[in-house]
């Protein structure tokens, strides 16, 4: 228990001192946040890459701008807003949930639910709909099965 508390308090103190030092951003933290934010912004000239992954010159300039804004003290959300105001929802790798994007977010789920529903309905209705089952076996077949199960073989000529 003791070591756990020790670690907990160390973490808490580290977080508090990090908050106090917000005025002078820590270099590693700036870099880490720049990378994280860059990964959440879409490169507007290369369709499906984030600006972090893209080699496009515009993406490089956008990364530099992200870093400048992080350094200037913007929160992650403020940086993303900055780009969203200029480039629209498109620039966000995760589009926001709103009326015009509801299909995008819930469409796949709706398809799964529809598919599963259809599957279960078929599962329930199929056996009663006259598919091949035990009750449709001919008397001769039934006799053969029973003969086979009881160990005597009444059908030697066919083996």
């Amino acid at each position, binding site marked *: 228990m003791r070591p756990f508390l020790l670690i907990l308090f160390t973490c808490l103190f580290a977080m508090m001192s990090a908050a106090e030092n917000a005025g002078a951003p820590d270099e590693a933290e700036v870099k880490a946040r720049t990378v994280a934010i860059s990964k959440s912004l879409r490169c507007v000239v290369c369709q499906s890459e984030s600006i972090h992954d893209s080699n496009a010159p515009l993406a490089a300039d956008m990364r530099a701008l992200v870093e400048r804004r992080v350094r200037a003290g913007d929160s992650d959300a403020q940086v993303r807003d900055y780009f969203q105001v*200029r*480039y*629209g929802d498109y620039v966000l790798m995760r589009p926001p949930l709103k009326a015009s994007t509801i299909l995008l977010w819930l469409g796949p789920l709706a398809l799964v639910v529809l598919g599963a529903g259809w599957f279960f309905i078929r599962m329930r209705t199929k056996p009663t709909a006259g598919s091949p089952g035990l009750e449709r076996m001919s008397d001769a077949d039934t006799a053969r099965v029973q003969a086979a199960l009881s160990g005597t073989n009444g059908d030697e000529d066919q083996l």
Partner: protein
Amino acid sequence: MKIWTRILPILLFLGLMAFLAFGLKRDPRVLPSELIDRQMPEFALSELHFPEATVSDLDFRGHVSLVNVFGSWCAACVVEHPKLVQLSQREDFQLIGINWRDDRTTAVAWLERFGDPYDQIAFDPDSELAIDLGVTGAPETFIVDADGRVRYKYVGIITDEAMRDKIDPILRIIAEEAG
């Protein structure tokens, strides 16, 4: 009942296909300009020909402006350029260039070769103004009214048809508003 369970999946599939086919026809490169009807962003950049001079958002006040994003690296800009040289004869707007992600000497040489139609050119090597305007490529042309509001964004090469169908109608609306 039975026929429906057969037909419904096919209908759903066809519906999905139609939806996706429609999506394929749309050009994903055409992004809406978020700036439409907003104020031109504040900026101050060095003039391409006169590095000591500044071009800023204040230069847009009192004139209707066509703001053209170009670069000497941009192949489509060479195609568009004669049209801009021709448009520079018109009196109803000023033509402002944004020289985007370029090298100063290369850009000046490019303009010497193809002609310089611009009244002023903002030199933007680090995409400062370009990102602020939501630019995604060159050429791109913005119409800014005399109050400094962005009224329209045209993506691509300005052709005669683009002038007639897209740009001139907006210029006429702006002129009518001004009386």
